[in-house]
């Protein structure tokens, strides 16, 4: 075996290195210096993120390893970097939370689990063989269950963890079932070989369609597409806030990209036959149902859960576009979504840490007591709703543009439905803004100064929201490297 092919996996190795250092630090350093664990891991991770911008990674050539099971390219390296950025922000945001009495003793585990799941996502993204894919998928999702259960003293956390783990395993069982059909039909688990076999084969049959439906539902579960989304709200609500934010952006982002890779590379040739219409249905359902549920939510985390469901629907528009523009738009959307959603969660986390309030009523009049937090939240909401000049507008616009590129009437209808749904989503985002700025009620959240780490993370997010759209080179770069 040629060991040099490990060198292709630069980012994985880097991540492992960070993981190991954090792990060793956590295990072997004296108790009193563990207070700096969060800082240490964040700094280390930040260095690793910076590494992602080294030319060798940033413009990484198309390379494969392990006889084609693993592949990397500039796109893959960049989506990993995007996820890294999100993970970094989550880590910084989590510092304050990890410092709490009940969490403190286990905080090392939080960082380690987080890095592990990230590693799983890397594999998922880079996989060109379903074995590696499934390993990555499980590596990404199982530690998350543990993270969801992190606040084990809290009932909600427990309930969320049970719901997550049981449904997750169920969904991987379904996914594997579908996979077994695919294997039976094509005789291989290599993406490329499956695609070739499908192309050579006599087109389409019922078994393939069912298999495809199972595969899509398996990944759709991770992405929380309707009707595979039902775990989402409960888990988001129950999990500790940093975990929720991690789940909602990074996990979702990775799944979305992996979904794209699987659908395009493996099932690309049966696009118009099979999964185009499936996705139409899923997208409409996802956006609409997500929005309808989000309208009524009073708990901020649950609210954002549903909002993230509908956002997933928009992300899927990039998949359905089935072209380079779609891929770029999808990555860009994920990037923007990371910043916007993490800003929202950052504010929620900050308020929760200081006052324990997570309901929308508690945000009434927030602007009077905590203007900056309220302002940040507003930016996040506007960005999520797709209001210019914030980044969310650009990402939405590009994703719609890329979808319409296909040009059929059906896609116009689909986009129109999606656009009409943006009105509904704007409504509930504005509800938050209304609570903070317009409501006359006295704020129940006293004025406070949030922790340094929280503020730092929020500044990053605000910077991202304001600049990502206007600074066009980011999107241009993504579009350039997309295929």
């Amino acid at each position, binding site marked *: 075996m040629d060991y040099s092919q490990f060198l292709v996996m630069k980012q994985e190795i880097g991540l492992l290195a960070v993981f190991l250092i954090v792990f060793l630090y956590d295990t072997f350093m004296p108790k009193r210096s563990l207070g700096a664990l969060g800082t240490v891991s964040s700094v280390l991770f930040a260095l690793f993120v910076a590494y992602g911008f080294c030319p060798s990674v940033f413009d990484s050539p198309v390379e494969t390893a392990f006889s084609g099971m693993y592949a990397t390219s500039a796109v893959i390296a960049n989506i990993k970097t995007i996820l890294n950025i999100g993970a970094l922000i989550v880590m910084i945001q989590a510092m304050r939370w990890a410092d709490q009495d009940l969490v403190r003793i286990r905080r090392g585990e939080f960082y380690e689990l987080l890095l592990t799941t990230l590693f799983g996502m890397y594999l998922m993204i880079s996989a060109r063989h379903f074995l590696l894919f499934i390993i990555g998928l499980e590596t990404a999702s199982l530690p998350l269950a543990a993270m969801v259960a992190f606040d084990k003293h809290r009932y909600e956390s427990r309930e969320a963890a049970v719901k997550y783990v049981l449904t997750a395993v169920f969904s991987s069982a379904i996914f594997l079932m579908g996979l077994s059909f695919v294997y039976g039909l094509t005789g291989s688990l290599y993406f490329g070989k499956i695609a070739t076999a499908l192309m050579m084969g006599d087109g389409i049959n019922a078994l393939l369609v069912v298999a495809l439906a199972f595969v899509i539902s398996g990944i759709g579960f991770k992405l929380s597409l309707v009707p595979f989304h039902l775990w989402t709200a409960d888990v988001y609500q129950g999990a500790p806030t940093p975990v929720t934010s991690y789940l909602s952006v990074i996990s979702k982002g990775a799944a979305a990209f992996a979904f794209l890779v699987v659908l395009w590379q493996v099932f690309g040739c049966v696009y118009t036959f099979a999964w185009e219409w499936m996705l139409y249905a899923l997208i409409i359902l996802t956006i609409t149902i997500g929005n309808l549920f989000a309208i009524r939510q009073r708990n901020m985390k649950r609210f954002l859960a549903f909002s993230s469901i509908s956002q997933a629907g928009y992300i899927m528009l990039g998949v359905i576009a089935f072209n380079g*523009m779609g891929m770029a738009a999808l990555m860009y959307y994920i990037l923007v979504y990371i910043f916007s959603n993490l800003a929202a969660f950052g504010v929620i986390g900050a308020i929760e840490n200081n006052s324990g309030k997570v309901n929308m009523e508690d945000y009434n009049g927030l602007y009077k007591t905590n203007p900056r937090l309220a302002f940040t939240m507003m930016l996040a909401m*506007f960005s999520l709703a797709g*209001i*210019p*000049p914030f980044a969310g*507008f650009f990402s939405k*616009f*590009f994703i*719609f*543009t890329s979808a*319409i*590129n296909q*040009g059929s009437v059906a896609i*116009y209808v689909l*986009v*129109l439905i999606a*656009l*009409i749904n*943006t*009105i509904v989503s*704007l*409504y509930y985002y*504005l509800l938050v*803004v*209304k609570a903070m*700025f*317009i409501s006359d009620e006295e704020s129940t959240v006293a004025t406070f100064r949030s922790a340094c780490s929280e503020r730092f993370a929020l500044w990053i997010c605000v910077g991202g929201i304001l600049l990502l759209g206007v600074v*066009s080179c980011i*999107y*241009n770069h993504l*579009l*350039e490297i997309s295929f």
Partner: protein
Amino acid sequence: MFSNILIYFVVIPLIMLGGLALCRNIKQIRAVAVVGALALTALSVWLLLDYMQLRAAGNTAPMLYTDSWSWFGPLNINLAVGVDGISVAMLILSSIILLTGSFASWKINPLPKEFFLWLVLLSTGVFGFFISIDLFTMFMFYEVALIPMYLLIGVWGSGNKNYSAMKLTLMLMGGSAFLMLGLIGIYYHSAPEGQPLTWNLLEIVNNASIDKGWQYFLFPMTFVGFGVLGAMFPFHTWSPDGHASAPTAVSMLHAGVLMKLGGYGCFRVAIYLMPEAAQDLAWIFLILTGISVVYGAFSACVQTDLKYINAYSSVSHCGLVLFAILMLNTTAMTGAIMQMLSHGLMTALFFALIGMIYGRTHTRDIRLMGGLMKIMPFLAVCYVIAGMASLGLPGLSGFVAEMTIFVGSFEHADMFHRVFTIVACCSIVITAVYILRVVGKLLFGPVQDEHHLSLTDAEWWERTSTVTLIISVAAIGCFPNFFADLIKFTFSPSIFAVIGMN
């Protein structure tokens, strides 16, 4: 990039935003707002003069000061700017209203800083919209202009402000949903097969490659999209509630400028780019806009809230704008643009005055007020002038605009257009009815409320604001040919050549 004059229409508001963010007290805020608005006004006037000079020198390009800076290169999205007579007129309108709006909200309370921040952000959008000739940036600025409304109404508004603000925002966003789809659709048909797609208006016009089938789909999308903001029946209901709840300066900007975005967009995008569909489908929208003209006027007759009256009157007048645009000939379109100018100024004047009156009497119900002419003669006289402008008295702007529209509309000799033109003409009578009803009840007659006797007349900033507007209204009314020439040149025959009209 900064050598182009147009870019300063966006840069100055951005500087203002920065300046406002640094302000510590109300005086500085006012200073920044007024200085910025003055700078913008000066800039637009200078632009006007320079524009006229260039035209006089024989420059016949459809747009002047065009420039384009690549933004999202791969999608061919550029920050493309350029103006023609219409845009110049709109820029002047916007800057004047921003200036007077700043004066009108001299004593805004609470949170003056935030108020002006949002107001300036809104005007950034407006200015950006008018200078853009790239569909993407146009749309972006359009939305930038919409969203601050929510907070401006929600925080500083009055009455049922939550409901109104939400309704306004959602309905307008609903319009922009259609719009976005239409614009993206246009993009994908912007160039013939094999050539790079473009967002640039001028290039799309030159390519003329949107085939008719697609036009039938995209034209309604864009027209309705902009039409919602232009308060087209039946998508106008955001307007009365929104205006009624909005604070003074916001009503001014909204009715004065934002609603013009709708008409401008309908012309600049829907009709300019898709003339064939416009020709074929105009009848549908003519019916709708014709209805909104009389419908708004009739509705205004029975309202009792001053702002509702004005809002419905805006529906009527803006309906006339769209109506005229759909007539698809130079005269009517010139009239439409003049009506935009005229309506912008006089509605701003109206709303400013209503705000000032409301600030004193704390009611807008005309049944509870009366005889204000005796109490606050200055404001009352201004109100009468605004009313006269609105009902189309010669010498003020409304007359010129309406007459141009009617003459233009009358150029269509078929029964359908005739009937609708005459229906639209009827609105001038109905307008007279409701304007005089208000004037009679509000300003004349005996004083209704004893407490009002102690109220004071206008302060200096209020006078500045109203007088500026009145002068502008009268300027258009007295020297219409200047503006008509400015606008008319824009309607290059090429648009109408497609339709087969002159």
